[in-house]
Every structure is written in C-alpha cells, then in structure tokens.
C-alpha cells in the first residue's frame, strides 16, 4: 500500500481527540440563561477526568472514522509489483504516419519513413507499439495486439516490412477524426488493464493547412496521453492546384479554377485542357491558357471550346513545384434521348388541341433530349409502348389496354388525361385496379388545385413559396372519383372538396399518373398556365432520371452505386482509372470506393440493356493547401503536445506521475470515504441511543 499524499496521514493524530474527549467530560450539559448573576457565586466546577473508558464501541467507531478520513485524504493505492516502480519508461505508443496525397510531394515520404525508423529504434523491450497509417481514416499496419503477440526483436522487423509496402495515397487528410480515434485506441488497453504504461501518440505528418484539424477542438483530451507531432517538410517552393468548376455555355465550354498557396513563390501557370485519352501536351485538340495567380489567391479560367465533348477531359497545370495535384478530370454528362409518345387527337398546328402544347413543352437540356411521337390514329406498333413516356388522352382498345398495362408493370410511366369518365376509368384499369366509379363534376365557376404534394419528385420544381401558387389555374370541368381509391393510389393534388385531381397509381415497377381534368381549353387553362412546361419537364426528368446534376466525386468518397443504376438490379462492374475492375451487387448499401484520381467507369444492365456511366474522381481540394501549419496552431486546439517543462521531468517526477495515474485508476479513496461515512452514521445512531437510554447514568458517571 502506497500513498499519493502521505502528509495527510498526519491527520491520524486526530484519533487521540475522541479518546481525550471521552476521558475528560464536563458535567454541565448546557447553558441556562438567567437575568442576573449578581446574587450568585460560582459553585466549584465539576470537570472530571476519568481513567476508565465507558463506551468502548463508541470510542472505537469515532477513532475508526477519523482513521478512515485520514487514509482517504492521503489517497492510498496499490502497486502491483516493484518492477513497475523501476520501469517508468514502459510506453504504449501509437505511431501514425500520414499517407494522404500531400505526402506525395518530393522527399516527404522518405522523411516520414526515416522518422518511423527512428521511432522504432527508440522502442524499449516492454513497450507496446501500434503502427498506423492515416489519411481520412486510420488504418492499422501493425496493431497493438499483433505487436504484443510477436516475439521481441521480430516486432520492429515486421513493422518495417509492412511500412515498406505502403506509399502515400490520393485521399485527403482528416486529422480531426483520426487523432482522437488513435488516442482512444492507445488508452484502450484490452482486458489487462493493470499494467500501467505511459501512453503516447506519435504523429508523423506534413501538417498541411488542409488537414481538417478543427475537429480536434471539441475532443476532450485525456490527461494521461501525450501527443508528439513530428513534422516532415517539403523542399518545394510552392504549390498550385487545378479544379473543375463546371461546364460553360451548355456543352462545349469548361471552367476551371487555379489555386495558389500562401507560401508559393510562383505566380504564372499554364493550364491545358485536352481529351483524357491523349497525353498531356501532345494532344492536337488541346487548348492552353496562361494564368497569373498571386499567392493565397485563385483564378477561374474559362475554356470556350474543348475538343471532343463526349469524352472525359483532363485538365493539367504546370508551373509549380509539386505535381501531385496538377491534374483534374471532367466527365460531361451523357445526353439521353427520351421518347415521349402522345396517344390522342389533334393536329400539330391547332392551338386548341393538347398535342400542340405538348409537342412544344419539352426543352432540351445537356442531360437529355426529347423525341416526340404522336399516335393519332392508333396505328403505332406495339413496341412503342415499351420505349418511353406515354401520354394517353383517348380511349384505348383492349389490345392497347393490355399492352399499356404490361408496359406499366414493366416499369414504364403512363400519363392518363381524364378528359372523360371513360378515360378516367381506363387509367385504373391500366394500373390493374378495379374500374372506379367516376362521375362528371358540376362545377360552379371554376375549381382550383390545392393540397399539392410538393414533396413528390414531379412537383419538386414548385417546392418554393414563390412557385407553389396553383390558384391561377382555373379548371372548369373535371371528373369525380366517387369510390374509395385503391391501396396503390396516392393523391398528388386535390380539387375543391378534397376531390383527387392528380392521382399516382403504382403498378408493378411502373406507374400511371391520372389527371381527372383535361389539359386543353375546354376543361382547364392548364396548358396555358406557367405550371405546364415545368411540370412536363419535371415528369420527363423524373421518368428518365435526368433531373440530378451530373455526378462529381472526390477521392475518398464512397459513391452509392444505386444513384447511377436507379431501379436496376444485378451486378455493376466498376473500372478504376488504373484499369482495375471489380464487380458490385447493386443495392442501397453498395458503394464504390473512389481511391485514385481519374475517370471511373461503371457498367450495368437495366431495362434498356447495357448501360455505362463515367465519374471523374478528383483530389480533395483541401489537400492542395500545402502551406504548413505550425505546432502552436494545434496546441491552441488543446492537443497535449509535450512542452519544455515536461521534457525536463526528473525520474522522481515521472515516478510521481505514475503513482498519480495508478491512484486515479484505483480510486480507493472513494471506498474509504464511504466506509467512513457509514461508520459516522453508525456512531451517530449509537450515540443517540446511548444518550436516550442512559442520560442519568452518564450524568452520574
């Protein structure tokens, strides 16, 4: 048993007090206030001392309580063995090596390896060491368990070999999450927690400004851990990087940004954009621009025309020292051709007919173009049902009904315009529901759309207070669905009296959108309202999945493959820029990890057959901010870096530190205090009981 603050043991002397008080007792029990003492004289005081102890138990309890209090204050702890007292150098140390993209700069990795080597040389016999690499995540090269499982002597050899197989990757740095994780790993000593070691985290990094150190601020650093940051510094005189901002003027143009770091001595750079397949500088279609970017500033460069717009584009930067971030890739989104098939009546030039408006409603976007077909006489071949978005505004015959229902079941979308009771019923039949009871509404004045489900993808463009006003869309004639809607129905918009106006009926993999009013002038002013064109384009985009922005990705992202494949199932083949291929099963939880810069190719099969997509994975822009942070900046965030005073700790100080840590783990004082309190309670109860039962006795004593 040892004591952290043995001086408090002097408090044990207080144990004599109860004995003294017990032996000497004054007879008077209290004070009697009296108006005057002028007629009184003091009686001889009867302060008696007794040579005999009357209440042994009481005395023992009081003495024991005092002893326990003194013990608790002197903070007792147990040392398991004397060896631990001697071995104050035993450490549990995590060595973290930065393998982020910025470590690719010239000379940094060699420096890092040297520092690891030095750290491994410094390892003592009883040390427990873990070797980790980190960028955005912490990965073990040699875990503590493995280290402890290996024969001493073999440990450092294995660590060296494993480090040799590692080179810096392309990912960004996130010291804010990695360092706290490493600290918790160092502190987590497994089942054998009795061994006390100095805990230390050694971080070997370039500590560039984009290391995301803000996360360190919120971490509560344990007292027992020290963090030693060993810096590697690049010889270069500045770094500039290039990133793609986006396309310019529709399809062919491109905007790129050039960033220069604060400590750069370079200001003039060259930017070149060319097809990714051709070698930089040698491509005949390559376009070049000179750009002047002062340190700590950025400039956006515009390329009006980049050749071969369908291919991925590689943007290259030259003029700085570090080349790891001098390339960026850009993939233009493919333009999809979406057929829209109109089955109704009317001529293309008659403004009173729905066809006239529908044909003109679809606007081409970089992501898709519309092929509009009109089947006026019903002679279109059966395959046309299976090619795109159908807009049905007439009664179908039995064959057409069956085909359309089949198409919907297979995953196509059909828009049914309920210009009559029959066409409304027909929509339910296509959706595989029982033909509903539908009647013609008797509208006084006009009806308005209300309760529009703005959360639905089709109405998403209107999900803004400035755009969600549907009150200027008068509807003069509409149909009422009298019976209860089937389970597969969802009302997207209502008319007055909560009557469904737009109903989505899901059937199989597809769906039917039923409008209970006509779009043309006879029924409503829908085609002339400002809502018509956005709604039509929204319907097509929702159908074709072209509403989202062309996907861009940063290295290190976990790209959800379902965002590409949509409703398709089966396998997806991912080809990395390096040519490495692997297959994934398409599911909501399947991700493609983008680990290198370049263009990733995705191949999968859906209802249209073979589909491909390309995604450009670029470097984390923060990783290009290579100007170095100072140690003071991370110390300011509370990171317990060893300071000068700590370096001067004597062996006695270290011994004291160890004792403090042992004591703080064992915390015997809490139990001792608790025992003391219990004894005092017992003493109070006993004393009260004695006072109650033996007052005359004690007075006479």
């Amino acid at each position: 048993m040892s004591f952290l603050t043995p001086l408090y043991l002097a408090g044990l002397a207080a144990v004599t007090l109860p004995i003294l008080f017990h032996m000497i007792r004054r007879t008077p029990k209290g004070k009697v206030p009296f108006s005057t003492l002028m007629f009184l004289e003091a009686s001889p005081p009867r302060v008696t001392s007794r040579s005999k102890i009357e209440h042994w138990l009481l005395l023992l309890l009081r003495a024991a309580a005092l002893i326990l209090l003194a013990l608790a204050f002197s903070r007792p702890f147990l040392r398991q063995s004397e060896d631990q007292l001697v071995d104050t150098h035993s450490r549990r140390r995590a060595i973290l090596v930065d393998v982020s993209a910025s470590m690719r700069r010239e000379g940094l990795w060699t420096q890092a390896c040297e520092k690891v080597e030095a750290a491994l040389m410094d390892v003592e016999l009883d040390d427990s060491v873990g070797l980790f690499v980190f960028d955005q995540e912490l990965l073990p090269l040699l875990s503590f368990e493995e280290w402890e499982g290996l024969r001493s002597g073999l440990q450092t050899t294995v660590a060296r070999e494993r480090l040799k197989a590692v080179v810096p990757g392309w990912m960004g740095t996130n010291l804010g999450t990695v360092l706290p994780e490493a600290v918790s790993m160092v502190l987590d000593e497994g089942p054998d927690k009795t061994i006390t070691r100095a805990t230390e985290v050694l971080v070997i990094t370039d500590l560039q400004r984009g290391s995301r150190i803000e996360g360190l601020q919120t971490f509560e650093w344990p007292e027992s851990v020290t963090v030693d940051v060993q810096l590697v510094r690049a010889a270069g005189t500045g770094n500039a990087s290039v990133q793609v901002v986006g396309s310019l003027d529709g399809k062919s143009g491109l905007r790129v940004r050039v960033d220069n770091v604060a400590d750069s001595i370079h200001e003039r750079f060259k930017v070149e954009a060319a097809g990714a397949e051709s070698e930089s500088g040698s491509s005949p279609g390559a376009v070049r621009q000179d750009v002047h970017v002062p340190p700590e500033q950025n400039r956006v460069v515009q390329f009006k025309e980049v050749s071969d717009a369908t291919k991925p584009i590689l943007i290259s930067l030259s003029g700085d020292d570090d080349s790891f971030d001098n390339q960026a890739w850009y993939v233009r989104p493919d333009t999809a051709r979406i057929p829209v098939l109109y089955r109704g009546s009317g001529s293309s030039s008659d403004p009173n007919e729905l066809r006239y408006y529908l044909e003109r409603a679809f606007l081409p976007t970089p992501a898709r173009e519309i092929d509009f077909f009109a089947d006026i006489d019903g002679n279109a071949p059966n395959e046309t049902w299976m090619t795109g978005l159908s807009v049905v505004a007439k009664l179908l015959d039995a064959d057409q009904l069956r085909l359309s229902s089949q198409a919907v079941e297979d995953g196509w979308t059909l828009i049914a315009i309920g210009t009559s009771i029959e066409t409304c019923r027909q929509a339910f039949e296509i959706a595989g529901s029982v033909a509903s009871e539908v009647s013609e509404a008797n509208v006084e004045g006009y009806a308005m759309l209300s309760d529009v489900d703005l959360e639905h993808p089709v109405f998403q463009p209107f999900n803004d207070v400035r755009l969600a006003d549907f009150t200027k869309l008068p509807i003069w004639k509409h149909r009422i669905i009298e019976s209860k809607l089937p389970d597969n129905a969802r009302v997207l918009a209502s008319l007055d009296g909560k009557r469904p106006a737009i109903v989505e009926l899901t059937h199989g993999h597809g769906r039917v959108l039923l409008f209970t009013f006509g779009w043309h002038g006879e029924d409503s002013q829908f085609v002339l309202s400002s809502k018509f064109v956005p709604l039509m384009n929204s319907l097509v985009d929702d159908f074709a999945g072209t509403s989202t922005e062309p996907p861009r990705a940063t290295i290190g992202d976990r790209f959800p493959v379902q965002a590409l494949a949509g409703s398709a199932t089966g396998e997806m083949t991912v080809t990395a820029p390096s040519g490495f291929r692997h297959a994934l099963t398409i599911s909501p939880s399947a991700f493609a990890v983008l680990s290198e810069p370049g263009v990733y190719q995705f191949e999968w099969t859906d209802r249209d057959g073979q589909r491909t997509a390309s995604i450009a994975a670029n470097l984390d822009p923060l990783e290009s901010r290579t100007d170095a942070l100072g140690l003071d900046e991370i110390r300011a965030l509370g990171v317990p870096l060893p300071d000068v005073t700590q370096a001067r700790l004597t062996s006695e100080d270290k011994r004291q530190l160890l004792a403090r840590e042992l004591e703080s783990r064992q915390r015997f004082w809490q139990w001792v205090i608790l025992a003391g309190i219990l004894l005092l309670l017992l003493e109070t109860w006993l004393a009260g009981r004695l006072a109650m039962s033996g007052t005359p006795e004690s007075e006479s004593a």
Partner: protein
Amino acid sequence: MASPKKSQSTFGRHADPAVLMRIRSLELRVKAVMEGFYNGLHRSPFHGFSVEFSEYRQYTDGDDPRYLDWKVAARSDRYYIKLFEDETNLRCHLLVDNSRSMSFGSIDYTKADYAKTLAACLAWSLTQQRDAAGLVVFDEDVQDIIPARFRHGQLRQILMALEKAEQGTSTDLTKPLERVAGQVRKRGLVVLISDLLASIDGLDRNLGYLAAAGHELVVFQVLDPQELNFEFDAPALFQDMESGREIYIDPNSARKQYQERLHQHLEQVQTTCEKLGAIYELCPTDRPLEVALSEFMLRRQSMKAGSARVPHRRSSAGRTV
C-alpha cells in the same frame, strides 16, 4: 425547573396572566384587563369635572370672594373658601425597562411582556380619564420617548411604541431618570416599571432627583417567580443575560445564598422608595395584572389619605390613578 402554578389558585377570579399574554395585540390585552378592572370602579371623568368639591380652607385676605361658602358662613359665622379639584390634568410618565434581563421568563411569557402590559394598562387608564400619559422605554440608554400629552392617538402611539420596542442591552437607570428629570419640568406622576436588578447605589440618587422636582413616584418591580425563588434543579452553566458572563452553579447549594441576597436587595429598594415617598410595588409576573393594579390603587389612596399636602397643589385626588 419548577413552573409556578400559584396564579391559578391564589388569583383564581382574575384573568390568568398566562392566558392573557397569549393575546397578541397589546391593545386587546389591555382592554381585557382594564374593562374587568373598571367594572364598578371607574367614574366618568365628565361627571362633576372641575366642580367637584375638595375641601374647605379658611378665608384669608386676598382670596377670591367668589369662592366663599356662604352657607357655612351663615351656619357657623366663619368664612371658608370652598376648594375644588384642580383643573389641570395629571401628567404621568411611564418609564419601562426594556433591558435584556427583562427578557427572562421561566413561564410562558417574559418580564418584558408583563411590564409592557402593565404600562399599557396604566396608559389606557390615564387616557380614559383624559390625563396626559407619556412613555419612556429604556435599557442602558433611552430607546424611545413619547412626551406626556392628552390628545387623540396618544394611547395608540404609546401602545405601538411598547409593542415595537426591541430588546435592549443592560440596565442603567441613571440616564433615563436624568433625562426625565431634565425634560419634565411640570410636576406629575412618574411610574418606573423595571426589574431593578442592578446596583442599588444609583437608584437612590436618581429617584431623588425626581422626588425633589416634585414628582410623585411609583416603582413597580417586576420579577419572575424563578428570580424570586430560584427553583432550578440541575447544576448548569448559568449565563448572565446582560453581560454574557458564565458561571457554573449548583442551584441546590446556591439557592439559600441567592434568596438571602435577593431579599436584601429588595429591602434596599423598598427602603429607598419609602425614603423618597415613592410607592413601591413588587410584581411577580405570575400575579394577575388586576391584582397588581388594584393593590397599587389602594396603596396610593391610603398614601393620599395619610399625606398632608396643601389642597390646591393636589392634582389628582379621588382619581383612579
């Protein structure tokens, strides 16, 4: 500690002071005492006011012939002047001790409670008779002073002053008595209510000032039954309430000596009072207030009857106070 139960047996027909003191309002308490006390005793001050016959004096040259009693002259052939009550109202100052020793009470209430009630009863009685009542509350210094007046609200003011009086420190009669002697020029009645548990030396001198100034003196010495009998049981550390001094006392052994010394002190007080012509009344706090008051009345009346004062100087003969 023995609790005196004497009051109920000895003074059974009067209100038990313990019950009385439970009445919080001093005004109500005074009414409870005085309304019973005055039943049949009180005479209306309006009835025969300032026309009440007092005594005869032989006519001498210079006397106002208007006051000659012609009937007597006709009957006895001698000229007598008929004297009436002095029209000047009585001016009475109530000196109430509020020192810390007065806060002693072995029964449910303290000496201070008793003293205040007694003072309030006297003030009420005086006011009822349209006499001027004043109040001096003191400990070692004068705490509060209300000059003797007869006016509307005076009684209430006195009662409030008595009620709000905070416990003082030690007793010193010198300052309050000197101040009363200095301030009250007009002759009147001075009623001192105190436990007089202080050195007797100054009392003689200080009361002497007032007596020499022509004031009529009344001394109520209020003492707790325990102070009179010292019937404590257990030995204990006794603390002087005024000085805070503590001594260890075994009551059984100290009782006899205490009683002897106390009686000696009381006798000295009484002798001093008699010497100065003051009415001395010892009031144990367990004695009903009516009894104390009526005994005081009787004493005063008998004293008046025996005194040979010049008639026109009398101020309040025949009054209840």
